[in-house]
């Protein structure tokens, strides 16, 4: 039973479990913060891309395209290792959140835009004909309907952000992956890595299942 002792060494797992949990906490802190800031940034980008004056929509599109093209790991390394050369120094936590937010907001911007564009034109016209201001039209009529459309892809994006937090370990963030690799070194046994993988799956599997249900739920709900 060499294999079991190597990969599923229960004593090692029990020893290192508190470390893994503290890593999970950091992972969640990075993930949840980045998801929230990414949502806010994405909604803002989507709105200025659709309705901004002058060159703003174009600039927003450029931003979105760039940050959807750049590999997150490259961006993270630039934020943490390159920006200090121009005097901008972020802590590992802030670096991770900044990099994740920059990318996540680009993706959520496209999700929000698609959701808003999916709302029938008549909804905009009816709002305007009633005299609603642009702000009330968005807040009371368009966004509540768009939210239903964007919830499945936004949840998907949350999953991606939570997974991508693992990259924060390269900037010495004591997240789940980092703690697992350290525990592995200490115990001279890879079981903590397997433990970390299982924790990631336990965390994200429910979300994956929720997305599938949401897609089914909103998919069959055909509205006029």
């Amino acid at each position, binding site marked *: 039973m060499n294999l079991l002792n190597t990969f599923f060494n229960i004593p090692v797992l029990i020893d290192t479990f508190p470390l893994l949990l503290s890593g999970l906490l950091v992972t969640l802190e990075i993930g949840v913060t980045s998801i929230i800031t990414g949502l806010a940034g994405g909604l803002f980008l989507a709105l200025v891309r659709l309705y901004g004056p002058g060159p703003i929509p174009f600039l927003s599109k450029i931003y979105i395209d760039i940050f959807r093209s750049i590999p997150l790991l490259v961006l993270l390394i630039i934020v943490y290792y390159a920006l200090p050369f121009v005097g901008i120094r972020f802590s590992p936590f802030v670096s991770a959140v900044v990099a994740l937010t920059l990318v996540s907001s680009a993706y959520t911007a496209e999700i929000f835009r698609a959701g808003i564009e999916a709302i*029938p034109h008549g*909804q905009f*016209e*009816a709002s305007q*004909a*009633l*005299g609603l201001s642009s702000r009330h039209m968005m807040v009371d*009529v368009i966004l509540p309907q768009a939210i239903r459309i964007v919830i499945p892809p936004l949840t998907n994006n949350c999953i991606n952000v939570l997974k991508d937090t693992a990259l924060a370990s390269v900037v010495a963030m004591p997240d789940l992956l980092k703690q697992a690799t350290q525990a592995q070194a200490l115990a001279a046994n890879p079981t903590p890595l397997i433990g970390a993988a299982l924790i990631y799956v336990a965390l994200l599997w429910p979300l994956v299942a929720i997305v599938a249900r949401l897609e089914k739920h909103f998919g069959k709900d055909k509205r*006029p």
Partner: protein
Amino acid sequence: MTPLIKISNLKKAYGIFTVLHGIDLDIAEGEVVCVIGPSGSGKSTLIRCINRLESFSDESSIVVDGVVVGPGEALAKVRAEVGMVFQSFNLFPHLTVLKNVMLAPMRVRGTKPAEAERKARELLARVGIAEQAEKYPGKLSGGQQQRVAIARALAMEPKVMLFDEPTSSLDPEMVGEVLDVMKSLAGTGVTMVVVTHEMGFARQVADRVIFMDGGRIIEQNTPSKIFDNPKEERTRSFLRSVLDH
């Protein structure tokens, strides 16, 4: 008396294709005007310019109740005074019938929720759907939805009501209930501009019927004169074609 709506030299083009060729039209307060004409003649475009859902040429001018309809601040004022009912209802599907009717008065006029609700229930009773107030629009028949749409527009207490083929997407058995609501509305003194294919309605309710073709007003007159004694050949052939069907 100055007209409530004054349209002067209204021009509208999509690229090189001219939809409206300089329309002049005055509509008096309380008047009920029906606009008829073949499809593509510019009827929708004409009434959609009145609340500027469509922009129009700078040489044109539309004045509603003394306010120039143009981009900017004054537009909100015009839109609050001008209600519109669309062919496709365009109710807000995520709000109940009651909330559909309450929304604009609360947001645009700052009406208190209790007052907006009282008013909305009164209007829903007036269009005959008081019992449906808590339902979502998707649960209602087409005729009921269109009556909600009328109540929603009336909630703003508009001076003018624009109707763009309000019965064209309804099943035949529901046309009557919507026309009845519009007929009773016509008796209340609100100014109405109605694009319609319902010639019976136009004859019975309109003070004036306007026949449009090719982006121009070809002929306008009282319903009896237009329907019984049209002067223009184009009007005659149009009426022949619709009355045959």
